[in-house]
């Protein structure tokens, strides 16, 4: 069975490759370059393509699978209604899989399970929490600014928000910028 792993993160690709060691009868190909991807896939003729969900080449690859006459057997995306849970799990983990039509599902399932596990493990290693934290902080700042205005100007919460927004609009800035200014000014005044 020929397995192509397409991932712009070479680190993640090799983590998956390592996991595939437990499968017999496998040839694993790792493709990290966007350039020339289709030609490589055509050359390899994989039975299954594992790809990170966010890979920018997905639309291109799907188009190629849909119209390509060059590949001997058509490759169907692994979106088989009967296996919806498995697909949902893989999407949650950030893996998309494309499988040659006719590849037995008992061979696909363990492969996909493994990819999901490895992807999840990789995600835990990443500190992409930073962005989520940033967003939370933004909302907290706006809430704090609203409270400051409510206390100091004796206005309701909607009025406080409207005040921030009016200021943002009239000064050509974002609400979060105004909120930050309010909070900073308040802190400086050492209330």
């Amino acid at each position, binding site marked *: 069975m020929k397995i192509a792993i397409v991932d712009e993160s070479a680190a993640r690709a090799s983590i998956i490759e390592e996991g595939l060691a437990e499968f017999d009868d496998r040839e694993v190909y790792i493709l990290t370059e966007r350039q020339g991807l289709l030609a490589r896939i055509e050359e390899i003729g994989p039975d299954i393509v594992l790809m990170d*969900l966010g890979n920018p080449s*997905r*639309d*291109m690859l799907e*188009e190629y699978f849909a119209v390509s006459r060059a590949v001997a057997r058509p490759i169907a995306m692994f979106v088989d209604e009967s296996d919806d849970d498995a697909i949902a799990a893989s*999407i949650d983990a950030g893996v998309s899989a494309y499988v040659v039509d006719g590849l037995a599902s008992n061979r696909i399932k363990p492969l996909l399970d493994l990819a999901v596990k490895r992807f999840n493990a990789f995600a835990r290693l990443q500190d992409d929490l930073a962005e989520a934290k940033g967003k939370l902080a933004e909302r907290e700042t706006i809430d704090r600014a609203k409270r400051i205005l409510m206390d100091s100007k004796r206005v309701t919460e*909607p009025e406080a928000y409207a005040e921030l927004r009016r200021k943002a609009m009239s000064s*050509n800035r974002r609400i979060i910028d105004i909120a930050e200014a309010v909070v900073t000014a308040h802190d400086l005044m050492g209330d």
Partner: protein
Amino acid sequence: MATRELTIGFLPLVDACLPILAQEHGFAEEEGLNLTFVRDVSWATVLDRLLYGHTDASHMIAPLAIATTLGRGRPPQKLVAPFVLGLNGNAITLRKELAEQVCEPGRFGDPREVGAKFKLQADAALKAGRKLRLGVVHRYSSHNYKLRYWLAECGVRPDEDVEILTVAPPFVADALANGEIDGACVGEPWNSVCVERDVGTIVLATAQIWRRGVEKVLALREDRLEAKREEVEALIRAMRKTGAHFVDPDNFDMNARVLASEKYLAADEKLVRRSISDRLVLAHGAEAVHFPDFMFQWSEAANFPWISQACWLYSQMVRWDQLTYDVADARAASQVFRPDVYRNAKSGTMGPLPAANSKVEGSVTQLTQVGTQQGSITLSDNRFFDGRTFDPEDVEGYLASLP
């Protein structure tokens, strides 16, 4: 205060503007909504997130919502579009040397003249044993359909005389620079990025091919729409208000700055402003050209999901996927657009509402007052460049009339 949450998927394109600005300017909060955004770089991923519930709604190329409902390329899943995020806003950019052969760089030419000259180039390339290669963002995109519509009418057979392939918007400039493609039909700011990097020249706006062509929609899974009906209607109201703000020249600078920021388009603010203001620089170093309807987000009930627009997209799917026209498919495709939800959302709030759900597309050649349920709407020129009209009641006749 804002307690109801919606998560929205998008691709970094200027026409994702309405939901983004609804959140940033507080129009969403006014409607009691808090929006969270998930940015992706391929439509396949945007669609996966929508189908598997990572997002409630998404910015989506309209034909893909129809293709998904009809089960083209994957098992069918019903999607609905209660709101059109905008009309047009895309352009055709060609490699600089090629552009010089087909138009006067720096100006929009006449689509027929540009097409005739393009045909000469395509034929010459073909004779030399090499097809011109044109990128589109997705096979199920209006970009693909408008490009093909234009080519076919100008005598270039899209599947025989040139090669049309998929290139993700952020990579169009690279693909032009390294010779992978000779041109592309893509949304903003990516045409302007090509011009700025001096790797391509904008030769036509898609608005020149169809003056009022449907572009992105807000798409949801049908069951998610039912479950979140109130939130969706609130979002529609918020986006209508955002639209009025978006088209006001006083707000161009601010909106360009917000959209260009790292968490949304991560693009150059100056380039984003070009399409927002309908003032594009078509060739590197040229003066900006004002094309008033380059993108169309608000007036003339631009966001109303006309059933006839969905029908037109289905007709093009039949045409280019070489399908047989099917009455049941046509009905399923037209039901993706949900004017009933749009009407319900706005009822008694703001903006005029058309009386009909469908119209003959491309039939308005001068200012025309149309019947409304409330308010008044004046439609202006909505022609296709070849002067054909599309009657949703006679799709087969229309298809037979096309080259």
